[in-house]
């Protein structure tokens, strides 16, 4: 048993070295089901990168193989990753929208000799699970911490925190609390509500009764966001002067047409706004819009995917197409470049992306569409969440 296993491993490694004229990248994401939009954005980001930079690195052709995990399903994710490595012979694993799906794959990496480039999953601890993980998206801690300072600067000292009751929601709650209390504010109440909440009126009543001057909210992007923001308006919280703070998941660009007027003026902090003003972003938005078909569907996972591809291309360059996961990861440690979202670098120690976090406000453009308008920049933000979990 053991011998055949070693032989297979050797054969795999050899084939990687000698005949790699096509390098395969396995991308796992939610391409159907309730989160299909985010998966579509993965593909758009990847397609955009390959459209701009070509589908060849050196002499090697790049081939992307997509696998679908519609909802967080670690067992399925792991089975698919195994299949990608063993059957399809991918040299890189990438994508992963949900944290548990990424966590499930980390134990495989070393044995498979494959680096994992995370294009979304935002829980801080993932990078600690294997030295072969690199992340090009963000963490909930990273995007939720600056908003605490924004809230304090806006003269709000009592805030109620309202989050969806699951991993990222709890992360956001802790991040905000840590940041806000450090800035001298007080979180008067922390509410966790079930993920499957349709009617937010009772929650709004709770917020009103708490006597807070502002509300910090985190919900997964999608239909619940719409209900939450509408309830905030309709129950008289907005007109009552209770300020709204959130990380940018709540006002992702693809939800803005539906949110419309209701979202106007909401302040969020996030790593990327489609409206970001730079030549790099202009080129990216053009390519990604073409890739996704309907530009209104473009949202933040696309940028994680785009930069993820950049990292993988650099890895392939550094290893000359040979399969050497450790060498590939080492090559991108400290890598710095100008992404469409602004200047970024890979922190050599945590292998997580260091980036600017922007304060944005939902505004109405001249043509009647809504967008996230960047108003303030927090430069070179690392991941405060890693220190918190340690």
């Amino acid at each position, binding site marked *: 048993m053991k011998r055949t296993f070693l032989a297979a491993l050797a054969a795999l490694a050899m084939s990687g070295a000698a005949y790699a004229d096509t390098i395969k990248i396995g991308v796992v994401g939610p391409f*159907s*089901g*309730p989160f*299909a*939009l985010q998966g*579509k954005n993965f593909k758009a980001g990847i397609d955009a990168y390959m459209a701009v930079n070509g589908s060849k690195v050196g002499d090697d052709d790049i081939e992307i193989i997509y696998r679908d995990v519609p909802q967080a399903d670690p067992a399925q994710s792991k089975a698919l990753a195994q299949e990608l490595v063993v059957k399809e012979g991918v040299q890189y694993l990438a994508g992963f929208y949900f944290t548990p799906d990424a966590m499930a794959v980390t134990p495989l990496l070393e044995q498979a000799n494959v680096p994992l480039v995370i294009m979304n999953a935002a829980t801080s601890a993932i990078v600690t699970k294997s030295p072969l993980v690199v992340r090009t998206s963000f963490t909930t801690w990273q995007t939720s911490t600056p908003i605490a300072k924004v809230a304090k600067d806006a003269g709000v000292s009592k805030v109620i925190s309202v989050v969806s*009751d699951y991993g990222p929601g709890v992360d956001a709650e802790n991040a905000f609390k840590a940041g806000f209390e450090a800035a001298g504010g007080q979180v008067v109440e922390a*509410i*966790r*509500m*079930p993920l*499957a*909440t*349709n*009617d937010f*009126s*009772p*929650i709004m*009543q*709770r917020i009103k*009764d708490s006597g807070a001057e502002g509300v910090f909210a985190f919900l997964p992007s*999608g*239909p619940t966001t*719409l*209900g939450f923001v*509408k309830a905030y308006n*309709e*129950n*008289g919280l907005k007109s009552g002067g209770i300020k709204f703070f959130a990380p940018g998941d709540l006002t992702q660009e*693809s*939800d803005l*047409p*539906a949110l*419309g007027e209701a979202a106007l003026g909401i302040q969020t902090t996030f790593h990327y706004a489609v409206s970001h003003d730079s030549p790099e972003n202009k080129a990216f938005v053009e390519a990604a819009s073409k890739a996704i*078909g*309907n530009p*209104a*569907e473009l949202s933040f996972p696309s940028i994680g995917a785009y930069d993820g591809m950049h990292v993988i291309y650099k890895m392939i360059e550094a290893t000359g197409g040979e399969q050497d996961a450790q060498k590939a990861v080492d090559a991108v440690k400290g890598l710095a470049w100008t992404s469409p979202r602004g200047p970024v670098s890979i922190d050599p120690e945590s292998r997580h992306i260091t980036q600017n976090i922007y304060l944005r406000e939902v505004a109405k453009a001249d043509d009647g569409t809504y967008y996230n308008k960047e108003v303030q920049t927090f430069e070179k933000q690392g991941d405060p969440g890693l220190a918190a979990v340690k």
Partner: protein
Amino acid sequence: MQTVLSIAIDALAYGMVLFVISIGLSVTMGLMRVVNLAHGAFAMIGGYIASYAARDLGLAYGFAIVLAVFGTILIAIPIERLLYRRIYGAPELTQVLMTIGITFCIIGIANYVFGPTLKTVPLPPQLQGSVDLGFRAIATHRLFAILCGLAVALALWYAIEKTAFGVKLRASVDNAAMAAALGVRTEIVYAVSFAVAVGLAAFGGVVGAELLPVEPYYALRYMVTFLVVVSVGGAGSIPGALLACLLLGGIDTTGRYLMPEFGEFFFYLAVIAIICVFPRGLAGRAKG
């Protein structure tokens, strides 16, 4: 006191929205005995049509609703003819398989045609904004939904209990063979009831779109809620469904206000408790 009133208002509004969307399912499940898991899919189609009509074509809200109802019925007719007709009277589990299959197909098609983003049905100016009730504000469209719910409940009750068609329908349900022998064209009765159920689904999908936004996964996301509400009420009973919606709406809203952390526990424990006390649903009759 103010808080209690406020919760009561929210509960009423939420319950009525649930009622408008699920009552069509009560008709298919109770009167036609089809476990129609594709109910949410029809509501979603209605929402998409209304969204397209009102947002992209700029039609009036009322017109968009009418278009959604009849458009959805039009889409449903071939589905009924080709697929549903095969499962009338079939084992429940077969019906589950068929209707889940239909739901999957509709989700896939909606995702392909309309894309995965959220769609809204823009409200007319009269329904926008909030009404001040003195002690709190409530969204105007919520009041509209409450009124719609009451109207639907009354109309259905009248149609089933007081009209000739209602008599035929009840006869066909209780004993199809006997009804047919007495000259009731059961096939037509079934087709009309199905159309009504689908129309109600579409109507609910549009009216409830503010609360349950339209997107491709709508069809599955809220299916469980609809199924629970209808069964707790007792399938086929209009007053039962109304009572169940108000009760569950109330429990859900109160739970979410008092201890949101355990909101789900509240709701489902209540469901279990109700069914243990009323094993046939709130208004379930002794023997069907």
